[in-house]
Protein backbone atom coordinates (compact mmCIF):
# COMPACT_ATOMS: atom_id res chain seq x y z
CA UNK A 1 0.00 0.00 0.00
CA UNK A 2 1.23 3.47 -0.72
CA UNK A 3 2.42 5.61 2.15
CA UNK A 4 1.83 9.32 1.91
CA UNK A 5 3.86 11.88 3.67
CA UNK A 6 2.30 14.84 5.38
CA UNK A 7 2.26 18.21 3.74
CA UNK A 8 1.99 21.66 5.16
CA UNK A 9 -1.41 23.25 5.52
CA UNK A 10 -2.94 24.07 2.20
CA UNK A 11 -3.24 27.74 3.01
CA UNK A 12 -4.59 29.90 0.24
CA UNK A 13 -5.10 26.95 -2.05
CA UNK A 14 -7.57 25.35 0.35
CA UNK A 15 -10.76 26.76 -1.26
CA UNK A 16 -9.60 25.62 -4.68
CA UNK A 17 -8.71 22.16 -3.40
CA UNK A 18 -12.01 21.92 -1.60
CA UNK A 19 -13.96 22.85 -4.72
CA UNK A 20 -11.96 20.31 -6.73
CA UNK A 21 -12.71 17.61 -4.18
CA UNK A 22 -16.38 18.41 -4.44
CA UNK A 23 -16.05 17.99 -8.17
CA UNK A 24 -14.67 14.52 -7.50
CA UNK A 25 -11.00 15.09 -8.35
CA UNK A 26 -8.77 12.38 -6.91
CA UNK A 27 -5.80 14.66 -6.45
CA UNK A 28 -7.90 17.00 -4.31
CA UNK A 29 -8.93 14.15 -2.04
CA UNK A 30 -5.30 13.20 -1.71
CA UNK A 31 -4.27 16.75 -0.87
CA UNK A 32 -6.90 17.04 1.82
CA UNK A 33 -5.89 13.69 3.23
CA UNK A 34 -2.19 14.46 3.30
CA UNK A 35 -2.74 17.77 5.03
CA UNK A 36 -4.30 16.17 8.09
CA UNK A 37 -3.65 12.46 8.03
CA UNK A 38 -0.61 12.48 10.35
CA UNK A 39 -2.11 14.35 13.31
CA UNK A 40 -5.36 12.49 12.77
CA UNK A 41 -3.77 9.08 12.99
CA UNK A 42 -1.65 10.31 15.90
CA UNK A 43 -4.78 11.36 17.72
CA UNK A 44 -6.37 7.97 17.12
CA UNK A 45 -3.21 6.24 18.27
CA UNK A 46 -2.97 8.36 21.38
CA UNK A 47 -6.57 7.48 22.14
CA UNK A 48 -5.60 3.86 22.13
CA UNK A 49 -7.46 2.77 19.04
CA UNK A 50 -6.61 -0.80 18.12
CA UNK A 51 -6.24 0.02 14.42
CA UNK A 52 -5.39 3.70 14.04
CA UNK A 53 -4.51 3.41 10.36
CA UNK A 54 -7.82 1.80 9.56
CA UNK A 55 -9.48 4.39 11.73
CA UNK A 56 -8.00 7.32 9.88
CA UNK A 57 -9.08 5.75 6.58
CA UNK A 58 -12.58 5.51 7.94
CA UNK A 59 -12.45 9.11 9.15
CA UNK A 60 -11.48 10.46 5.74
CA UNK A 61 -14.00 8.32 3.93
CA UNK A 62 -16.65 9.88 6.17
CA UNK A 63 -15.16 13.31 5.50
CA UNK A 64 -15.23 12.87 1.74
CA UNK A 65 -18.73 11.48 1.78
CA UNK A 66 -19.95 14.50 3.73
CA UNK A 67 -17.89 17.07 1.91
CA UNK A 68 -20.99 18.62 0.41
CA UNK A 69 -22.17 19.70 3.84
CA UNK A 70 -18.95 21.47 4.78
CA UNK A 71 -18.48 25.16 4.33
CA UNK A 72 -15.67 27.22 5.76
CA UNK A 73 -11.94 27.90 5.90
CA UNK A 74 -9.13 25.45 6.44
CA UNK A 75 -9.06 25.83 10.21
CA UNK A 76 -12.69 24.92 10.38
CA UNK A 77 -12.00 21.96 8.11
CA UNK A 78 -9.33 20.79 10.50
CA UNK A 79 -11.69 21.08 13.43
CA UNK A 80 -14.36 19.22 11.45
CA UNK A 81 -12.01 16.36 10.61
CA UNK A 82 -10.98 15.95 14.24
CA UNK A 83 -14.58 16.11 15.34
CA UNK A 84 -15.27 13.14 13.08
CA UNK A 85 -12.16 11.41 14.41
CA UNK A 86 -13.30 12.00 17.96
CA UNK A 87 -16.72 10.55 17.15
CA UNK A 88 -14.95 7.48 15.83
CA UNK A 89 -13.07 7.21 19.12
CA UNK A 90 -16.28 7.49 21.08
CA UNK A 91 -17.89 4.83 18.90
CA UNK A 92 -14.91 2.57 19.43
CA UNK A 93 -15.04 3.04 23.20
CA UNK A 94 -18.69 2.08 23.23
CA UNK A 95 -18.02 -0.95 21.09
CA UNK A 96 -15.14 -2.03 23.32
CA UNK A 97 -17.28 -1.70 26.42
CA UNK A 98 -19.81 -4.07 24.89
CA UNK A 99 -17.49 -6.79 23.69
CA UNK A 100 -14.91 -8.77 25.62
CA UNK A 101 -11.26 -8.22 24.80
CA UNK A 102 -9.82 -11.19 22.97
CA UNK A 103 -6.17 -11.87 22.38
CA UNK A 104 -4.64 -14.46 20.13
CA UNK A 105 -2.18 -16.68 21.93
CA UNK A 106 0.90 -18.04 20.22
CA UNK A 107 0.89 -21.67 19.22
CA UNK A 108 1.66 -24.08 22.00
CA UNK A 109 0.81 -21.78 24.86
CA UNK A 110 -2.69 -23.05 25.46
CA UNK A 111 -1.57 -25.95 27.58
CA UNK A 112 0.95 -24.01 29.61
CA UNK A 113 0.18 -22.86 33.11
CA UNK A 114 -0.76 -19.20 33.48
CA UNK A 115 2.12 -16.87 34.20
CA UNK A 116 2.20 -13.52 35.96
CA UNK A 117 -0.93 -11.71 34.83
CA UNK A 118 0.48 -8.27 35.56
CA UNK A 119 3.60 -8.97 33.61
CA UNK A 120 1.58 -10.25 30.67
CA UNK A 121 -0.63 -7.17 30.76
CA UNK A 122 2.37 -4.87 30.72
CA UNK A 123 3.74 -6.83 27.81
CA UNK A 124 0.49 -6.39 25.91
CA UNK A 125 0.07 -2.73 26.68
CA UNK A 126 3.69 -1.89 26.17
CA UNK A 127 5.74 0.28 28.40
CA UNK A 128 5.17 3.51 26.60
CA UNK A 129 5.51 6.16 29.25
CA UNK A 130 3.34 8.69 27.49
CA UNK A 131 0.56 6.22 26.98
CA UNK A 132 0.78 5.12 30.60
CA UNK A 133 0.32 8.67 31.77
CA UNK A 134 -2.52 9.28 29.36
CA UNK A 135 -4.21 6.10 30.49
CA UNK A 136 -4.42 7.48 34.01
CA UNK A 137 -6.47 10.47 32.91
CA UNK A 138 -10.24 10.32 32.86
CA UNK A 139 -11.55 9.96 29.29
CA UNK A 140 -12.88 13.51 28.99
CA UNK A 141 -9.68 15.09 30.29
CA UNK A 142 -7.72 12.87 27.96
CA UNK A 143 -9.89 13.92 25.03
CA UNK A 144 -9.39 17.60 25.77
CA UNK A 145 -5.64 17.33 26.28
CA UNK A 146 -5.13 15.33 23.11
CA UNK A 147 -7.36 17.56 21.00
CA UNK A 148 -5.50 20.59 22.29
CA UNK A 149 -1.96 19.22 21.94
CA UNK A 150 -2.03 16.64 19.17
CA UNK A 151 -4.85 18.03 17.05
CA UNK A 152 -3.81 21.60 17.84
CA UNK A 153 -7.38 22.83 18.23
CA UNK A 154 -8.50 25.92 20.06
CA UNK A 155 -10.75 25.82 23.10
CA UNK A 156 -13.81 26.62 21.00
CA UNK A 157 -12.96 23.97 18.43
CA UNK A 158 -12.43 21.39 21.16
CA UNK A 159 -15.74 22.40 22.70
CA UNK A 160 -17.42 21.85 19.34
CA UNK A 161 -15.71 18.50 18.91
CA UNK A 162 -16.61 17.06 22.29
CA UNK A 163 -20.02 18.69 22.39
CA UNK A 164 -19.45 20.81 25.49
CA UNK A 165 -19.30 24.47 26.32
CA UNK A 166 -15.94 26.26 26.18
CA UNK A 167 -16.10 26.89 29.90
CA UNK A 168 -16.48 23.20 30.55
CA UNK A 169 -13.57 22.46 28.23
CA UNK A 170 -11.41 24.95 30.11
CA UNK A 171 -12.32 23.27 33.37
CA UNK A 172 -11.51 19.87 31.93
CA UNK A 173 -8.22 21.17 30.62
CA UNK A 174 -7.36 22.67 34.01
CA UNK A 175 -8.13 19.44 35.81
CA UNK A 176 -6.25 17.44 33.21
CA UNK A 177 -3.20 19.62 33.59
CA UNK A 178 -3.32 19.35 37.36
CA UNK A 179 -3.66 15.60 37.15
CA UNK A 180 -0.76 15.34 34.74
CA UNK A 181 1.32 17.52 36.98
CA UNK A 182 0.63 15.29 39.97
CA UNK A 183 1.43 12.21 37.91
CA UNK A 184 4.67 13.66 36.65
CA UNK A 185 5.73 14.78 40.11
CA UNK A 186 4.92 11.37 41.52
CA UNK A 187 6.88 9.81 38.69
CA UNK A 188 9.93 11.94 39.35
CA UNK A 189 9.78 11.17 43.07
CA UNK A 190 9.57 7.47 42.31
CA UNK A 191 12.55 7.70 40.00
CA UNK A 192 14.55 9.53 42.64
CA UNK A 193 13.77 6.97 45.29
CA UNK A 194 14.24 3.90 43.24
CA UNK A 195 17.80 2.88 42.48
Amino acid at each position, binding site marked *: *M*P*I*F*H*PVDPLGESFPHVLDA*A*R*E*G*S*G*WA*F*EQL*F*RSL*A*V*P*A*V*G*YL*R*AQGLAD*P*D*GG*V*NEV*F*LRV*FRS*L*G*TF*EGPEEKFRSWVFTIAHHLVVDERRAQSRRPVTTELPDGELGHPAGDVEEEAHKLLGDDR*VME*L*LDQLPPLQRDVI*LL*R*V*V*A*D*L*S*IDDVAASVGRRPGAV*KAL*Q*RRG*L*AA*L*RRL*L*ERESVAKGVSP
Partner: protein
Amino acid sequence: MSRYDVDWDEMEDLAVVAPFFAELRTQFAEGPAPQIGTELATLFVFGAPPIGVVKPTPAPAPRGRTVRRVAAGAVGGLALVAGMGAAGALPAPIQEPVANAAKLVGLNLPHPHHHRHPTSASTDEKGGKAGESPEVTTHAHRATHLPSDSTDGSTVVNPDGSTTGSSAGTSGQTGTTTKKTGSGSSTSTGNSVVTGSGSAVSSTGGSGSGDHGTNGSNQHQRPTYHGNGRTTRNDTSTSTTTPPPSDSGSGGPSTSTPPDTTPTTTAPAS
Protein backbone atom coordinates in the same frame (compact mmCIF):
# COMPACT_ATOMS: atom_id res chain seq x y z
CA MET B 1 4.03 29.19 17.84
CA SER B 2 1.15 26.83 17.87
CA ARG B 3 -2.30 27.72 19.09
CA TYR B 4 -2.07 25.38 21.99
CA ASP B 5 0.94 27.31 23.20
CA VAL B 6 -0.82 30.63 23.51
CA ASP B 7 -4.22 30.10 25.05
CA TRP B 8 -3.44 27.79 27.88
CA ASP B 9 -4.41 29.64 31.00
CA GLU B 10 -2.77 27.39 33.56
CA MET B 11 0.81 28.36 32.90
CA GLU B 12 2.07 27.05 36.21
CA ASP B 13 0.87 23.55 35.49
CA LEU B 14 1.85 23.96 31.87
CA ALA B 15 5.45 24.68 32.82
CA VAL B 16 5.60 21.38 34.63
CA VAL B 17 3.93 19.38 31.91
CA ALA B 18 5.49 21.20 28.94
CA PRO B 19 8.17 18.54 28.43
CA PHE B 20 5.49 15.90 28.49
CA PHE B 21 3.48 17.81 25.90
CA ALA B 22 6.52 18.13 23.68
CA GLU B 23 7.02 14.41 23.90
CA LEU B 24 3.34 13.83 23.22
CA ARG B 25 3.41 16.03 20.18
CA THR B 26 6.56 14.47 18.80
CA GLN B 27 5.25 11.00 19.27
CA PHE B 28 1.76 11.49 17.90
CA ALA B 29 1.35 14.75 15.99
CA GLU B 30 4.52 14.32 14.01
CA GLY B 31 4.63 10.59 13.82
CA PRO B 32 4.62 8.32 10.80
CA ALA B 33 1.98 8.77 8.15
CA PRO B 34 -0.79 6.23 8.02
CA GLN B 35 -1.20 3.52 5.45
CA ILE B 36 -3.80 4.17 2.82
CA GLY B 37 -6.57 1.65 2.49
CA THR B 38 -7.81 0.29 -0.80
CA GLU B 39 -10.95 2.39 -0.81
CA LEU B 40 -9.11 5.65 -0.25
CA ALA B 41 -6.39 4.72 -2.74
CA THR B 42 -9.02 4.05 -5.38
CA LEU B 43 -10.61 7.36 -4.60
CA PHE B 44 -7.30 9.16 -4.99
CA VAL B 45 -6.61 7.53 -8.33
CA PHE B 46 -9.99 7.53 -9.98
CA GLY B 47 -11.73 10.27 -8.15
CA ALA B 48 -15.43 10.25 -7.42
CA PRO B 49 -18.62 11.60 -8.89
CA PRO B 50 -19.12 15.27 -8.18
CA ILE B 51 -20.50 16.02 -4.80
CA GLY B 52 -23.14 18.68 -4.74
CA VAL B 53 -22.84 21.30 -2.11
CA VAL B 54 -25.58 20.78 0.39
CA LYS B 55 -26.64 24.00 1.90
CA PRO B 56 -27.35 23.51 5.53
CA THR B 57 -31.02 23.57 6.10
CA PRO B 58 -32.03 26.48 8.22
CA ALA B 59 -33.03 25.65 11.71
CA PRO B 60 -36.74 25.39 12.10
CA ALA B 61 -38.15 28.73 12.95
CA PRO B 62 -39.22 29.05 16.53
CA ARG B 63 -42.64 29.91 15.22
CA GLY B 64 -43.96 26.44 15.90
CA ARG B 65 -42.79 26.51 19.46
CA THR B 66 -44.18 29.98 19.97
CA VAL B 67 -47.53 28.97 18.58
CA ARG B 68 -47.61 25.95 20.84
CA ARG B 69 -46.73 28.04 23.86
CA VAL B 70 -49.32 30.65 23.04
CA ALA B 71 -51.94 27.96 22.47
CA ALA B 72 -51.06 26.29 25.75
CA GLY B 73 -51.28 29.60 27.54
CA ALA B 74 -54.62 30.38 25.94
CA VAL B 75 -56.03 26.99 26.89
CA GLY B 76 -54.74 27.38 30.41
CA GLY B 77 -56.17 30.84 30.72
CA LEU B 78 -59.50 29.70 29.35
CA ALA B 79 -59.60 26.83 31.78
CA LEU B 80 -58.78 29.19 34.64
CA VAL B 81 -61.49 31.65 33.64
CA ALA B 82 -63.98 28.83 33.18
CA GLY B 83 -63.13 27.38 36.55
CA MET B 84 -63.37 30.68 38.31
CA GLY B 85 -66.55 31.45 36.41
CA ALA B 86 -68.08 28.16 37.49
CA ALA B 87 -67.17 28.99 41.05
CA GLY B 88 -68.52 32.48 40.68
CA ALA B 89 -65.19 33.84 41.78
CA LEU B 90 -64.69 36.21 38.91
CA PRO B 91 -65.15 39.93 39.34
CA ALA B 92 -68.64 41.05 38.49
CA PRO B 93 -67.73 42.83 35.24
CA ILE B 94 -66.13 39.63 34.02
CA GLN B 95 -68.51 37.15 35.55
CA GLU B 96 -71.48 38.50 33.65
CA PRO B 97 -70.06 38.11 30.12
CA VAL B 98 -68.53 34.80 31.05
CA ALA B 99 -71.84 33.56 32.32
CA ASN B 100 -73.58 34.83 29.21
CA ALA B 101 -71.02 33.22 26.97
CA ALA B 102 -71.29 29.97 28.85
CA LYS B 103 -75.01 30.05 28.49
CA LEU B 104 -74.56 30.02 24.73
CA VAL B 105 -72.91 26.64 24.97
CA GLY B 106 -75.40 25.31 27.43
CA LEU B 107 -73.56 25.93 30.65
CA ASN B 108 -75.28 27.58 33.51
CA LEU B 109 -72.80 29.70 35.38
CA PRO B 110 -73.68 31.99 38.23
CA HIS B 111 -74.25 35.61 37.46
CA PRO B 112 -72.70 38.40 39.45
CA HIS B 113 -74.48 40.57 41.99
CA HIS B 114 -75.98 43.47 40.21
CA HIS B 115 -77.92 45.29 42.80
CA ARG B 116 -76.32 45.26 46.10
CA HIS B 117 -77.68 47.69 48.58
CA PRO B 118 -75.60 47.75 51.66
CA THR B 119 -78.12 49.94 53.50
CA SER B 120 -80.78 47.33 53.24
CA ALA B 121 -78.67 44.63 54.65
CA SER B 122 -80.12 45.13 58.03
CA THR B 123 -83.72 45.17 56.99
CA ASP B 124 -84.05 41.50 57.45
CA GLU B 125 -82.64 41.54 60.84
CA LYS B 126 -85.55 43.00 62.61
CA GLY B 127 -87.69 40.07 61.89
CA GLY B 128 -84.92 37.68 62.54
CA LYS B 129 -84.51 38.23 66.17
CA ALA B 130 -82.82 35.61 68.15
CA GLY B 131 -85.14 33.02 69.35
CA GLU B 132 -87.67 33.62 66.69
CA SER B 133 -85.60 32.55 63.75
CA PRO B 134 -82.97 30.51 65.38
CA GLU B 135 -80.95 29.72 62.33
CA VAL B 136 -81.24 31.89 59.37
CA THR B 137 -78.70 32.01 56.66
CA THR B 138 -78.48 34.97 54.46
CA HIS B 139 -77.05 33.79 51.24
CA ALA B 140 -75.44 36.03 48.82
CA HIS B 141 -77.52 36.89 45.87
CA ARG B 142 -75.44 34.57 43.79
CA ALA B 143 -76.89 31.69 45.64
CA THR B 144 -80.26 32.42 44.20
CA HIS B 145 -78.96 31.34 40.85
CA LEU B 146 -77.05 28.33 41.87
CA PRO B 147 -78.56 25.07 40.88
CA SER B 148 -80.23 23.31 43.66
CA ASP B 149 -81.53 19.84 43.87
CA SER B 150 -83.46 20.31 47.00
CA THR B 151 -86.29 22.35 45.74
CA ASP B 152 -88.97 19.77 45.71
CA GLY B 153 -90.80 19.83 48.90
CA SER B 154 -88.61 22.49 50.36
CA THR B 155 -89.71 23.64 53.68
CA VAL B 156 -90.40 27.27 54.12
CA VAL B 157 -89.69 28.82 57.39
CA ASN B 158 -91.76 31.62 58.56
CA PRO B 159 -90.37 34.69 60.12
CA ASP B 160 -91.31 33.51 63.51
CA GLY B 161 -89.11 30.52 63.14
CA SER B 162 -91.84 28.00 62.62
CA THR B 163 -91.49 25.70 59.74
CA THR B 164 -94.63 25.28 57.87
CA GLY B 165 -95.88 24.38 54.51
CA SER B 166 -93.91 23.44 51.58
CA SER B 167 -93.68 24.74 48.18
CA ALA B 168 -93.53 21.66 46.17
CA GLY B 169 -93.11 21.54 42.51
CA THR B 170 -90.39 24.00 42.06
CA SER B 171 -87.91 23.33 39.47
CA GLY B 172 -85.31 20.86 40.44
CA GLN B 173 -82.82 22.15 37.98
CA THR B 174 -82.86 25.71 38.87
CA GLY B 175 -81.98 27.48 41.97
CA THR B 176 -84.60 28.37 44.44
CA THR B 177 -84.90 31.47 46.35
CA THR B 178 -87.06 31.65 49.30
CA LYS B 179 -87.93 35.07 50.20
CA LYS B 180 -89.13 35.92 53.54
CA THR B 181 -91.45 38.78 53.67
CA GLY B 182 -92.55 40.27 56.80
CA SER B 183 -96.01 41.27 57.53
CA GLY B 184 -96.53 44.34 59.46
CA SER B 185 -99.74 43.57 61.13
CA SER B 186 -101.51 40.81 59.46
CA THR B 187 -101.15 37.25 60.42
CA SER B 188 -100.27 35.97 57.08
CA THR B 189 -96.86 35.89 55.71
CA GLY B 190 -96.18 35.41 52.13
CA ASN B 191 -93.33 33.15 51.47
CA SER B 192 -92.43 32.96 47.93
CA VAL B 193 -90.08 30.52 46.39
CA VAL B 194 -88.59 31.79 43.25
CA THR B 195 -87.17 29.38 40.82
CA GLY B 196 -84.29 30.17 38.67
CA SER B 197 -86.36 29.56 35.66
CA GLY B 198 -88.41 32.50 36.46
CA SER B 199 -91.39 30.77 37.91
CA ALA B 200 -92.19 31.36 41.47
CA VAL B 201 -94.21 29.28 43.73
CA SER B 202 -95.55 30.84 46.74
CA SER B 203 -96.77 29.19 49.74
CA THR B 204 -98.58 30.50 52.58
CA GLY B 205 -96.68 30.23 55.68
CA GLY B 206 -97.81 30.02 59.16
CA SER B 207 -98.95 32.82 61.20
CA GLY B 208 -96.91 35.86 60.90
CA SER B 209 -96.24 37.95 63.84
CA GLY B 210 -96.59 41.60 64.17
CA ASP B 211 -93.20 41.74 65.59
CA HIS B 212 -91.88 41.09 62.21
CA GLY B 213 -93.45 44.01 60.58
CA THR B 214 -90.18 45.49 59.76
CA ASN B 215 -89.01 42.41 58.13
CA GLY B 216 -89.30 43.67 54.66
CA SER B 217 -88.46 41.82 51.61
CA ASN B 218 -84.99 42.40 50.46
CA GLN B 219 -83.53 41.04 47.37
CA HIS B 220 -80.01 40.99 48.51
CA GLN B 221 -79.98 40.09 52.10
CA ARG B 222 -82.74 37.66 51.96
CA PRO B 223 -82.61 34.56 54.01
CA THR B 224 -82.64 31.35 52.15
CA TYR B 225 -84.33 28.38 53.56
CA HIS B 226 -82.81 25.10 52.79
CA GLY B 227 -84.62 22.02 51.89
CA ASN B 228 -84.02 20.51 55.26
CA GLY B 229 -85.94 23.25 56.89
CA ARG B 230 -82.99 24.71 58.66
CA THR B 231 -82.12 28.23 58.00
CA THR B 232 -79.36 30.36 59.28
CA ARG B 233 -78.56 33.99 59.19
CA ASN B 234 -75.15 35.43 58.82
CA ASP B 235 -75.82 39.04 59.37
CA THR B 236 -76.17 39.85 63.01
CA SER B 237 -77.17 43.42 62.57
CA THR B 238 -80.20 44.32 64.55
CA SER B 239 -80.83 47.77 63.29
CA THR B 240 -84.35 48.55 62.42
CA THR B 241 -84.86 49.56 58.92
CA THR B 242 -88.13 50.14 57.32
CA PRO B 243 -88.34 48.14 54.18
CA PRO B 244 -89.27 49.77 50.96
CA PRO B 245 -93.01 49.92 50.81
CA SER B 246 -93.12 48.66 47.32
CA ASP B 247 -91.33 45.49 48.16
CA SER B 248 -93.49 44.02 50.75
CA GLY B 249 -96.74 45.15 51.98
CA SER B 250 -98.18 44.60 55.31
CA GLY B 251 -99.82 41.34 55.06
CA GLY B 252 -100.19 41.61 51.34
CA PRO B 253 -98.88 39.26 48.81
CA SER B 254 -95.19 39.18 48.60
CA THR B 255 -93.42 39.80 45.44
CA SER B 256 -90.11 38.39 44.64
CA THR B 257 -88.21 39.79 41.73
CA PRO B 258 -84.71 38.62 41.29
CA PRO B 259 -82.68 40.82 39.04
CA ASP B 260 -82.39 38.38 36.24
CA THR B 261 -85.61 36.54 36.56
CA THR B 262 -89.16 37.52 36.13
CA PRO B 263 -90.91 35.32 38.53
CA THR B 264 -94.55 35.13 38.84
CA THR B 265 -95.33 35.28 42.45
CA THR B 266 -98.68 34.32 43.60
CA ALA B 267 -98.95 34.52 47.29
CA PRO B 268 -102.40 34.13 48.57
CA ALA B 269 -103.59 37.07 50.44
CA SER B 270 -104.42 36.50 53.94
